């Protein structure tokens, strides 16, 4: 089982994801440079947080054109796992791998805080270790995390169980309090909160670790994955 973390110019949380997977969970993980044209070896690709290409023009707008993103698309088409966190989520929506878009926080400010999330669906390879309705504390750090999506799409996403995390107290104006959504096939997850920042007792929070453990369970073949 191998994780790959894509490093775009301007990625910041690549090292944090790496650290959680490698040092905390002891898994095989590699950095992938943004112009890589080969992702065959990897089982789960992570698009980390940060400010790819400075987030100029729109967050994640430029990153979608990198060579690695073409491969991520293929990787996702094969049904393999893709996890986009924060800027990674923004890139996934810009690239059309997830519906909707992320716009400026309602208060127009960058927000760095720890917020309560509710797990809406645990029947996925990303959330199997959580219980439905479980409330977890996960840090957020974004200026544009306000998720917008049209009503029809939202309705379909809800029916299909694609909304995985919602905010208990909406920090950014996000539609339907959405914090994280996946695609219809449930192998691509995008979320604004940073589970990799909640992976160690020393940092005062371990609520995010179960997300990575869920993925590991799935990749090890032991977990449920609805298809």
């Amino acid at each position, binding site marked *: 089982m191998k994780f790959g973390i894509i490093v775009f*110019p*301007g990625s*910041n*949380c690549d*090292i*944090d994801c790496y*650290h*959680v997977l490698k040092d905390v969970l002891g898994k095989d993980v590699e950095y992938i440079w943004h112009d890589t044209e080969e992702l065959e070896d990897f089982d789960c690709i992570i698009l980390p*947080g*940060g*400010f790819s*290409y*400075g*987030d*100029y023009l729109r967050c994640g707008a430029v990153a979608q054109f990198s060579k690695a993103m073409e491969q991520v698309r293929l990787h996702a088409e094969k049904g393999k796992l893709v996890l986009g966190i924060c800027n990674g989520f923004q890139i996934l929506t810009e690239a059309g791998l997830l519906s909707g878009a992320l716009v400026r926080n309602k208060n127009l*400010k*960058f*927000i*760095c*805080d720890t917020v309560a999330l509710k797990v809406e669906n645990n029947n996925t390879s990303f959330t199997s270790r959580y219980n439905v309705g479980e409330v977890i504390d996960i*840090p957020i*750090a974004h*200026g544009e995390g306000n998720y917008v999506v049209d009503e029809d799409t939202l309705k379909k996403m809800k029916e299909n169980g694609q909304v995985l995390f919602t905010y208990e107290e909406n920090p950014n104006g996000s539609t339907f309090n959405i914090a994280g959504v996946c695609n219809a096939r449930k192998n691509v997850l995008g979320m604004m909160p*940073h589970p*990799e*920042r909640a*992976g*160690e007792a*020393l*940092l*005062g929070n371990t609520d995010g670790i179960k997300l990575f453990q869920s993925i590991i369970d799935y990749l090890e073949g032991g977990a449920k994955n609805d298809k």
Partner: protein
Amino acid sequence: MTNRYKAVGLNKQEYDKILEVLGREPNELELNMYGVMWSEHCSYKHSRALFRHFPTSNERVLQGPGENAGIVDIGDNLAVAMKIESHNHPSAIEPYQGAATGVGGIIRDIFAMGARPIALLNSLRFGEIENSDRVKFLLEGVVEGIAGYGNCIGIPTVGGEVYFNQSYRGNPLVNAMCVGLIEHDKIHRGNASGVGNSIMYVGAATGRDGMGGASFASVELTEESEEKRSAVQVGDPFMEKLLLEACLELLETGCVVGIQDLGAAGLTSACCETATRGEGGMEIDVLKIPRREKGMLPVEVMISESQERMLLIVEKGREEEVNRIVEKWGLYSVVIGKVTNDGFLRVMEGDEVAGEMPADSLDSSGAPKYYKDYEMPAYIKEVKNFTSTDVEEPQDYNETLLALLKSPNLASKEWIYRQYDHMVRTSTVVKPGSDAAVMRVRGSKKGIALTTDCNSRLCYLDPREGSKIAVTEAARNIVCSGAKPLAITDGLNFGSPEKPDRFWQFRESILGISEACRELDTPVISGNVSFYNETETYAIHPTPIIGMVGVLEDVEKACTMEFKEDGDVILLLGNTKDEIGGSEYLARIHGLEKGEVPAINFGLEKKLQAFVLEAIEKGLLQSAHDLSEGGLGVALAECGIGRRLGANVSFETNLRKDILLFSESQSRFILSVKKEKLQQIKDMMETVAAPYEIIGEVTGEKLQVTINDSLTIDMAVNQMEETWRGALACIME
């Protein structure tokens, strides 16, 4: 032509000195280069003479003042690089960009040493905010600028301070501090060594940025370039992130013999400083410098302050290696000249010599140095004319405490640090909101603690004592987090050094810092001076900002200030005296900035700091908090608010109640201890003979303070929290 020197901000003697050095008239380019290098900002001509008072070394200091940043050993082959820098004037003109580029500049200083920047702090001062749209605008812009740069580049902003006082209404202060980690054998310096080695330029192209000031001769400038010149620099954190990663990767290869950031005075200062520290000479071709705009004059290129640029001194023959790595990061690099040993900085324009000056005559070793007159200002005597009985005792202490918690100087700064990513790189163990931030050091058990401190009201009333207190309070904050204080960087913000009364403040402050640093064994390893922070009629309060770093041998033992559990015993360490002079209470409640500042006794201070540190290291404390602005009353409230825990405490005292509650006597701490550990603590205190009282316990949902059997404060923690947490947000929204 008589007044050529005035146009570049120099005086007659200084111009004569140039004539003497060169043995001829300088040309326009040369004159401008002297102008910027001999400006106060680059040459420290008014302050350098006093720096000899600073203690700058001990067995832990690996790099003292004089380089891009200071470096202090934290053991295990690891070290911390740190520096603070002011960006006051740019921030007053354009708060967002001014603050952003301040952050960008200080980060470059850190990675120029080869260190990986791991944390940012900032220290801000503004005029009173409550009824000033201007101050709100400044605060909003400055905070967004700091956030915009730091968040984007991915370095957590973990601490800082902000105060509001009318003395800053015309001159806000924005000081940014950066801290980096480095292994001992990887330290790099800004040396142009090895004759024949290549000088390379990396990063953003050079534009006409940062040339708005007076230090610019206009004789040969066309109107067009006049119009295109801009005093405001725009930061590009994305570019800097690439530059940072590229430089750190380059330094790993061993092909870089020297590295220097391009800061104030741009290429001019980077070239002459690296030359002076190296073989003594350098030749560069100004035509080879990448430019953002067409038609730039050599002088514009040489003194531009465009952001996100670095100068590298590269081993001859390895330039391609540099190009490859730099290109990988989407940047470009170019050879602009070579190291020489003839002692000259030679600026070529193609084949022609455009300027030629002894390199060491430009930089601070050759710049003028002044010993200015100083004289105690008249106000000093006046303000001391105060006794605590001059003010009336408040009627309702609940109200007084709430009023203090609501003061923008004491209220929660969450509105600010919520905009800063303080968690990126997942190393922030103690986040903003406690006494000092604590960062883990990856790959070791250690941690470092960081803080900035300066109570400038005390520095105004007594610059020497106030400055001692700034250093000591910083140390107290570090100790409360469980770390041993190691070293400081100082951001000295003052009025004009040419006025004897201001210069007196500056001198007193330096003497105070020096004494405290010597006492606490925390040498000064880097710093910055910002003068002329004054308007026609008034100057800012003297503001020597102290940035301090400390080390924790075991980061798991980090301690925070908030009470942890019901039933814990609360102790007050130290002595409370009749010392409300200069207090926030006196200023906020009675509208007075007066009095003697609290006295500091280093013997007691050191004893208590050592005690608190040892108790934390032994795992005996639940919480530790130092008492500073707002005194005992505010400190108790702050301890309770963190986890919404009440406390019941009582005192027997001869002091008036307001003095007991709000005096800002030094060397005091509030500790909380589990009952079962109390005896151990008592035993430790007996052996060191530390003054302490057991004042009560953590309990319930209210803060209840009984003084001489009368219940003086009785208030729900919730209510205090709401007031304290909401105050700044309420002003800003």
